[in-house]
């Protein structure tokens, strides 16, 4: 089922077209990545999706409700954190949640305890938010986003500023939400590694336009490389070249990654008496990926 559908979304600020026609569809239970470098337009898009700014053109519908025409119903099914969760520092975490819960029509008060339990803030919930660590604020932010039992959760760079343990925890948390509660989660990030670990599908955005939307698996496997550190280099290159395309870079050889063939190739090399010092699957750097996708220079 499609929970969020965005069609030909555009935004002009002044004369500058910042978002140039974005189409996205989110399905129930999936984590969708929104990948792009800083300044690509991720936050601007998310602000439009959450009703904070008005699109110049295009339509957004959340669970079938048009955001422009039926704001209230659309927002009933949406939870979000745009950039940082800026909760009221002078209120306790609990009061913050009460505050936002009061804005949800027909709110059931048992949901409050549920959400607090879910994000694991029970112990500190009555402390003032100004005493919270960044990780706790992030979790409280998620708690407020989940208060209304949304179908769609939008998180803008949710791991920004967290320490590695916090990042891992957050990642797991998001995956669980999608799996256990059937939420569609849209996560923006400028880190490919994060998207890779977290998302089912990904849209890559650059300069306000989506250049590719695909499953993470498909996207990565088409772009993943194999790095060979072998001795002697030239001989190995000849052997590999008979099987696939090879690029020589410094003291390594780089081929496409193909899970089925990699074993075969290495056996061939070993049989030819070549010593394999290291063989490595390597994710392309985000910049490389962009260069490739946008038809720029290859890694050569």
């Amino acid at each position, binding site marked *: 089922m499609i929970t969020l559908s965005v069609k030909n979304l555009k935004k002009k600020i002044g004369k500058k077209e910042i978002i140039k026609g974005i189409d996205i569809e989110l399905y129930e239970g999936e984590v969708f990545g929104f990948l792009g470098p800083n300044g690509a337009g991720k936050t601007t898009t998310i*602000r439009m999706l*959450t*009703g*904070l*700014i*008005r699109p110049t053109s295009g339509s957004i519908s959340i669970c079938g409700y048009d955001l422009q025409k039926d*704001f*209230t*119903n*659309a*927002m*009933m099914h*949406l939870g*979000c954190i*745009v*950039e*940082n*969760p*800026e*909760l*009221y*520092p*002078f*209120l306790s975490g609990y*009061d913050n949640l*009460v*505050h*936002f819960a*009061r*804005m*949800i*029509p027909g709110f059931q008060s048992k949901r409050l305890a549920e959400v607090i339990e879910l994000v694991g803030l029970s112990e500190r919930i009555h402390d003032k938010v100004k005493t919270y660590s960044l990780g706790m604020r992030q979790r409280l932010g998620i708690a*407020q986003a989940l208060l*209304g039992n949304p179908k769609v959760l939008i998180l803008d760079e949710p791991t920004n500023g967290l320490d590695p343990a916090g990042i891992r925890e957050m990642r797991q948390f998001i995956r669980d939400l999608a799996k256990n509660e059937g939420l569609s989660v849209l996560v923006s990030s400028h880190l490919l590694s994060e998207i890779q670990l977290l998302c089912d599908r990904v849209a890559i955005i650059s300069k306000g336009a989506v250049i590719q939307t695909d499953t993470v698996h498909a996207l990565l496997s088409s772009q993943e490389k194999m790095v060979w550190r072998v001795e002697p280099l030239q001989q190995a290159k000849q052997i590999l070249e008979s099987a696939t395309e090879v690029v020589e870079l410094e003291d390594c050889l780089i081929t496409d990654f193909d899970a089925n063939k990699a074993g075969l190739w290495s056996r061939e090399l070993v049989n030819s008496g070549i010593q394999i010092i290291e063989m490595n699957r390597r994710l392309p750097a985000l910049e490389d990926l962009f260069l490739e996708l946008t038809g720029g220079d290859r890694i050569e």
Partner: protein
Amino acid sequence: MNKLIQNEMLKLLARKRLIVVGIILSILVVLFTYAQYQTVQTQLKKLGTTDWRTTLQQQIIDTQNRLSNSRIPDDFKKELEVRVKQQQYYLDNDINPAEPGAPSFTKEFMENSIDLLLPLMIMVIASDLVSSEFSMGSIKLLLTRPVKRWKILFSKYVTLLLAISLIIAMMGMISYLISGVVFGFKGWTAPEFIGFQITEAGFDASGASIIPQWQFILMDFGVVWFAAVVVGTLSFMVSVLIRSTAAGMGIILALLIAGAILSNMVSSWTSAKYFFMLNMRLTDYLNGSPPPIEGMTLSFSLAVLTVWWLLALFISFGVFTKKDIY
């Protein structure tokens, strides 16, 4: 809507602004009470140590004698009649007219704070109400709820009205309690003179009548409230338009002070009467003080203030519901 207002109240109370306002007011009232006390003391000294009751009685008789003189003009006669009634009241209730008691002090305090002190206090609350959400960033959380924007702004506006009402009551209470300790708490039913007219033909008391002081104070508070609502709404608008609370306060402060200066200058620039600041002193119309610019009347000032008020409301809601939140 009720819940939204509860939310705004929760935030307002948590930020303790009202308490700050209360403390400021208390300090000022203590100061003014002391000043008033000093004035009263010097006055008493000047009048000598004679019993004020006999003096008062003598004055009443004098005034009554004067009233029997057919030659005095009618409007003056009316005023004398009121004076006799006031003096008689003071005598009957054992109030020394030189030490007028807490109700009178409160009335005067309100009348004197209507164009600067009270607006400042209101401004402290109003100019922060919206802009603080922007500067804290919480506006993004507030506006991504299943609630229409105008409702959110409306709840803030209602909260502002509630806060204004509360501040005015606080002001009244503080000034009554503190001054009462010094001057005594009596005098609620002292007769007051209303219905002075400052017409183009000059001063006219022919429509005047007498009401007990508490009614007069109620009217005073009513018009003070209205003036405060107008200033509050203007600050509210500035708060919607400008992210920075400090800059917003600066603008309103500058306007208020400019108004105070303008109304003190004998201004031949009569168009200045269309500024809201020059129409703030609504209490002057009740007690018969002359307006800053000739030809201004209560209905004129009310009309001017209402126009400013509607304009500010219109702009606030227009901008807020359309605004892109970055």
